């Protein structure tokens, strides 16, 4: 769980486009129906070349259906894994900083934060016709004082995310300038 600083509010979140999630789910669904299609269309060769060498001939139909349900349960776990990876891989844009939560699988989680006033430049990349039509792309942020670039790939509506970041960046810079002016005027007064 991320912890926010005092007076810090989440302005927006950015995560991968739903299309990327749907594509991954589609592959899982194809794998899910493959055994059913194999039994339907290739029953004879399957029995001759796969089941017979394993001495698995004359297997009852309920057992095959049972195995298929177990197979579907495993695919369902994989789909939940894809969802977890998609949903928990997110950027939180707050009024003070950006929190980059990178979820890889179930047990690898990397949280990086950088303050808005540290942003040097942002780059939006729309890779191809599909990304243009559906509205996703890559957003890269270069920060001062660090060699690391922060990138979110396949983010939904990258221009909109960039607009929010830029708006909050200017607000943070303005707030920092005001603090500096106040401290300078206090120093001059002493």
């Amino acid at each position: 769980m991320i912890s926010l600083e005092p007076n810090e509010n989440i302005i927006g979140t950015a995560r991968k486009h739903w299309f990327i999630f749907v594509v991954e789910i589609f592959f899982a669904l194809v794998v899910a129906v493959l055994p059913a299609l194999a039994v339907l269309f290739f029953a004879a060769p399957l029995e001759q070349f796969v089941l017979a060498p394993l001495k698995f001939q004359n297997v009852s139909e309920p057992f095959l259906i049972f195995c298929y349900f177990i197979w579907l349960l495993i695919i369902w776990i994989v789909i939940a894994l894809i969802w977890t990876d998609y949903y928990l891989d997110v950027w939180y844009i707050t009024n003070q900083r950006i929190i980059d939560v990178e979820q890889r699988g179930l047990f690898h989680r990397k949280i990086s934060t950088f303050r808005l006033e540290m942003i040097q430049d942002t780059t939006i990349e729309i890779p191809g016709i599909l990304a243009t039509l559906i509205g996703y792309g890559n957003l890269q942020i270069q920060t001062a004082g660090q060699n690391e670039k922060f990138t979110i790939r396949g983010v939904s509506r990258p221009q909109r995310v960039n607009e929010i970041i830029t708006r909050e960046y200017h607000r943070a810079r303005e707030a920092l300038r005001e603090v500096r002016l106040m401290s300078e005027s206090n120093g001059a007064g002493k």
Partner: protein
Amino acid sequence: MIVVVSWIIFFAAVILWSIFSIVFIFHWRHYSRQSKLAILAETIYFTVSAVLISSALATLNLKIVNVVMNLF
């Protein structure tokens, strides 16, 4: 023989599903900031899982399903 193998496969799958479900629930509740979408995903996950597990159980032994259904 095949009945014993089926039950072993069934219990192994249920144990695997239980382990993953505990980890999923931990992640979804701990990291999702209690969003409505995460709650919906959790509901769908458990509903579909229940359907798949009960369907597998039904193909193994319909009598057990009847006993379980009579409990409710």
